[in-house]
Every structure is written in C-alpha cells, then in structure tokens.
C-alpha cells in the first residue's frame, strides 16, 4: 500500500487512499487510481482492439498477469509475449462451466483476477445466427456472474454506439442517457447488445465490483470489424444521395488507450467514448482519399447486398439502416471528466501512455 507522500515501486504517487479519496457514501471517488497491480481477464482476445490493448498492458509494469480468452488459436501478434505475464486460453464463453473453469485455473485460483474486460461480443452481421445470439447473451451473463462470484473489483463491457436510437430528431451530441433503440424490428445484434448491456446495468449497484459499460463510436483501424471501418474499407463505399451525417469516430489505438484508463482508474456506469474530431462523413472519406458512390436511398440496401455478393465490401447496410442518413455524434464529456482528465495518474505507471 502506498501513501500520498511516498511513491511506490512503480513511481505511482497519485493513489489517494482513505477518506480523502472517497465520494460521499459511495466508496472511493471516480477517477482515482486503483490500488495494487492488475490481474486482468480479457475475453475476446482475437479482436484487433484487444490485441492492441494487451500489447499496451504488457508494457505497463503494474499489470501483473493477463489471461486472454477467445475461441480459436492465439493471435500471431501475441505469440511472443512473456509467458510469466501472459496466458492465452481457448474457451467457449457461452458455456457456464468453461467460464468457471477459467477462473479456477491453478495459476489464478489463489490470486484471482481483479479486472475483467468483456470484448468478446460477436458484432459481425454476416452470418449472425442463433448460435451467435446464444453466445452473445450467455457470455455476457456467465462472465458477469463469475466475476461477481470471484470478487472481481472491476468489470468492463465494450458495447457499441449502435444502441442509440437515431433519426431526424437526433441530438447534436448524444449523451449516455439518450433514447435507446428498442425497436423490436432492429437487427438481432442490436437487441443482443442491449440485452448484454441491461445484464450489466442490473449489477451496477453491486457493492464489491465497479461495473462499466463503454459505448465507443465507430472505430477505425486495419481489420477492425466496426460498421464505420467496414464502410471505409469498401470498394467503393456506397452512400445515400442527399445525406451527410455528422460522426466522431475513434481509432483502435485511442479506444485501447481509453480502455486502459478505465482499467486503472476507478469509476462505474455507462460511458460514451469517441474521437476528438467531429465532422461530416464525407469529409472523413475525403481526408482518406476515398471517393464514395452515391445511390438513391431506397436502392442503398440492394446495392450494398450486391457489393457484398461480389466481395467488394463487408459493410452491412441493413444492420444499422439509419446510420448513413442521420448524425450520431457521441458526447464523451463524462468519460473525459472521470477518466481522461486523470490520465496523468495512469501515466505515472504506464510510461508509454500519452497524456
């Protein structure tokens, strides 16, 4: 345990223990550094953002060990990681027993995890079937249940900005309390994302664990399966005539940075995470030298389907049909205030972190 005057072995000087760091009646104040070193469970390790995040975490001395879990083999980028600090396991998170077994591995039985990051949500509309649905909802349920049973103190679920209802009466900046897309005709992925979020939100008042839901805006980055990234990787992107929505996408690097802050700092609840730059979709395309083609709105989904059949895109226009028509700019002022404003505290332990 460090004291405010004496930095601990990692040079951390900003831990504010005791009453001074406590918010009224609610434990330590959001934005203060979590004490001790981190033992982290990451579900969905094959995602690009997860790979990036793990690389950053392993460069941080205060991360003691990471258990990365996904279906299939370990991503090549993580094969050379220090086996003392990084373990990869293949498991099906939709099976309760397999989830429990991960928490009971010899190495983690006596020194359990303190942080669980659930990034394993299957968000690709292509071939989304009952098995994917079962995986998404069950994994969220089992992982959270196991985390609470094994006294994990921080649980982070990476959701999506697609949960927001968008349309002509949209806000110029969408806050966390904005209307959600509860349309029963919405794509099953959206419904499952909301189900998983509600499972998390039902446990947000759990006293021993800070449950967080992070809703990132569209994420850019090579190989990232986000709607916005897939649109930009299309050849060419197809947009509806006469519409140019406002967006504020983030990048996988920035998202990994934000997840790192969420891991190291205290705070619970629902948070938007977005990029700093706000602008029209067409400007983002123009900036990257991409020339979109425009078609009349009613023909958009048919053209997109044809493009997918020809292998020219992986973007699925039917997944979030209003996304190319109406603005969705996330307001991440809350995350900024609670986490990014305290990035210097994390920077003291993670030297590579840009404040």
């Amino acid at each position, binding site marked *: 345990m460090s004291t405010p005057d004496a930095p601990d072995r990692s040079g951390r000087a900003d831990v504010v223990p005791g009453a001074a760091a406590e918010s009224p009646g609610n434990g330590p104040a959001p934005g203060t550094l979590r004490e001790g070193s981190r033992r982290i469970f990451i579900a969905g390790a094959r995602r690009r953002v997860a790979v990036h995040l793990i690389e950053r975490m392993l460069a941080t001395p205060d991360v003691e060990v990471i258990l990365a879990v996904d279906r299939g083999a370990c991503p090549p980028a993580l094969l050379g990681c220090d086996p003392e600090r990084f373990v990869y396991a293949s498991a099906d998170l939709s099976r309760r027993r397999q989830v429990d077994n991960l928490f009971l591995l010899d190495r983690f039985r006596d020194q359990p995890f303190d942080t669980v990051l659930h990034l394993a949500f299957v968000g690709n509309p292509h071939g989304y079937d009952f098995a994917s649905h079962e995986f998404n909802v069950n994994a969220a349920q089992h992982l959270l249940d196991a985390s609470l049973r094994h006294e994990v103190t921080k649980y982070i679920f990476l959701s999506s900005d697609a949960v927001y209802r968008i349309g*002509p009466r949209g806000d*110029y900046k969408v*806050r966390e309390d904005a209307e959600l897309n509860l349309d029963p005709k919405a794509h099953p992925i959206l419904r499952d994302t909301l189900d998983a979020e509600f499972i998390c939100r039902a446990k947000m008042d759990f006293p021993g664990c800070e449950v967080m839901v992070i809703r990132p805006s569209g994420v850019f980055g090579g190989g990232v399966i986000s709607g916005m990234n897939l649109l930009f990787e299309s050849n060419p992107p197809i947009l509806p005539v*006469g519409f140019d929505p406002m967006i504020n996408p983030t990048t996988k690097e920035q998202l990994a940075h934000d997840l790192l802050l969420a891991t190291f700092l205290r705070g619970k609840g629902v948070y938007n995470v977005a990029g700093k*730059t*706000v602008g029209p979709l067409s*400007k983002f395309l123009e900036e990257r030298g991409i020339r979109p083609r425009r078609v009349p709105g009613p023909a958009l989904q048919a053209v997109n389907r044809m493009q997918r059949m020809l292998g020219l895109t992986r973007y699925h226009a039917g997944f979030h049909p209003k996304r190319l028509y*109406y603005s969705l700019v996330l307001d991440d002022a809350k995350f900024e205030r609670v986490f990014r404003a305290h990035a210097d505290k994390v920077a003291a332990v993670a030297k590579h972190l840009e404040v």
Partner: protein
Amino acid sequence: MQLFRPLLPAREWTRIEKYVVSDAGMGTDVFGTTPEALGLGYALGYWLHRHYFRVVSEGHEHIPATGAAVIAGNHSGVLPFDAVMLGTDVFRNTEPPRLVRYMVDYFVFRLPFLGTLFRRMGQMPGTRRNFDGAMEEGHVVGVFPEGAAALGKPANRRYELHDFNPGHVELAARHRAPVIPFGLVGAEEQQTMLADLRPLARALRLPYFPVTTTFPWLGPLGLLPKPSRYFIRYGAPLWIDPEALRSVEVRRREVERVRDAVAEQIRLGQETRKDYHEGRA
C-alpha cells in the same frame, strides 16, 4: 459558391469570411455548420431581403453582440420565409455578424439535400439537448413559440397570435439568457390562406396542408410568396424570472409577458408600415 457570388456585395462576403465557425476538426462546428453553406444561404437570403421582401427593420441594438440569447416572435406566411428574413436581417445588421440558430421541424431532416443544407447552415432539429447545446455555446436561438401550425393561419386571423409554448421561457431561464421579442409584419400578406386540409396534412405528416388563392391551383409555383414588404421590429430584452423553472404560475406569467411584448412589436410594426405607405416614414 462562385455561382452565388454576384448575389452579394463584396463587403458582405468579407463579413461571411470573418464569421467564426468554431472548427471541430473537419471544417465544421459541432452542429455541422460550414462557412460555404452559410455563404450560400446568406447570399440567397440577402437577395430576398434586399430586393424581394425589401425588409425594413429597427431595434437591432437590442440584439446582444455576444453571448446566448433567445429571439422569439410571430410566425406566418404558409412557408417560413419569415424565418429566413429574420435570420438574414440579424446577420446583416449585427457587428460582428450573429447567426440565428433555429430549431427546425424534424421532417426537414428526413428530406435528402434539404436536411443536409439546413444543418450546414447551422440549423438543427428542435430537441431539448440541441437547444441547450446552442445556448451553452453562446448562440442566438430563434424560436417561434406559436409552433409550425401558425404558418397556416387563415387569412381572417391575420396577426392574431396563437398560444405560446413555454419552452423558450424555460430555456432562457435555465441559461440566464435574455429573450428578445420581435414582431414581423408583412409575411401574413405574402399568401392568402383559404383553408387547411387537415386529413391530408395528417396523412402526409405535415403540420397543415394549405389551400391558398394560388395553391394547389398553380402547382408548386403557387407556393411562392407575393413580394410584400416586411417590417421587423426588435423589442428590449426580457430577463426571465428563474422561478419560471419551479413554478407553473410564474412560467405562465413569463410566457404571457413575452407574448405581450411580441404583440406590442407587431402593433408598432403595423404602425410603421402605415406610416411608410403614407410616406411619413
């Protein structure tokens, strides 16, 4: 942009170029406003303001040079040319130029091109969050408290004010911003509304469906307004009692105060028009 350059004198282009759009990273502000679209909108508005509606206005000194304000007044004329003229008039007669941000009916943003153009000209859908955002960023917010339905007033109810919605008073009280009342005379005469086909309006999800002396008989051309001269008067700023946020009674009283102030500006505007036509102004 170049196409519309002849519509504006060089000094007005300079003013547009000087108008600061707080860049959010891609050449637009967070609302999506672009200097190009502003230039286009202002060029068209300026031409209408100067040559078509030949607007006569007074009381610009009541519009604050900086900071948030709510500008509220009467609405009429079947199509909202009054809003265009008010926005142009404020931009033209304030230094530094101030852009009036309107809360626009949602259906506009469902329309291709038009919705995008409106957003690029700094207009936005009328949600509470958008109101708050515009005020927090220190903009002048234009409100027609009678609602869009007031555009479809029949000819025999000209210059009668509908009941005012209280949103503008709450907004001003919440942000401690003044309400600038204005009265606009002349827009009522640009169209003669004979009837409102409500079932058709409901089917088309429009606030009203007008039958005028020219529409629908002349097709879409029948919606074009007659070139009646506009008279705009701005009244002294009204500071809203913050109690309006807590008491329905105070809120009702403050709404009535704004409505009375608007009615007074309309009355003075009508007098100005009379004097003008009689050659005294």
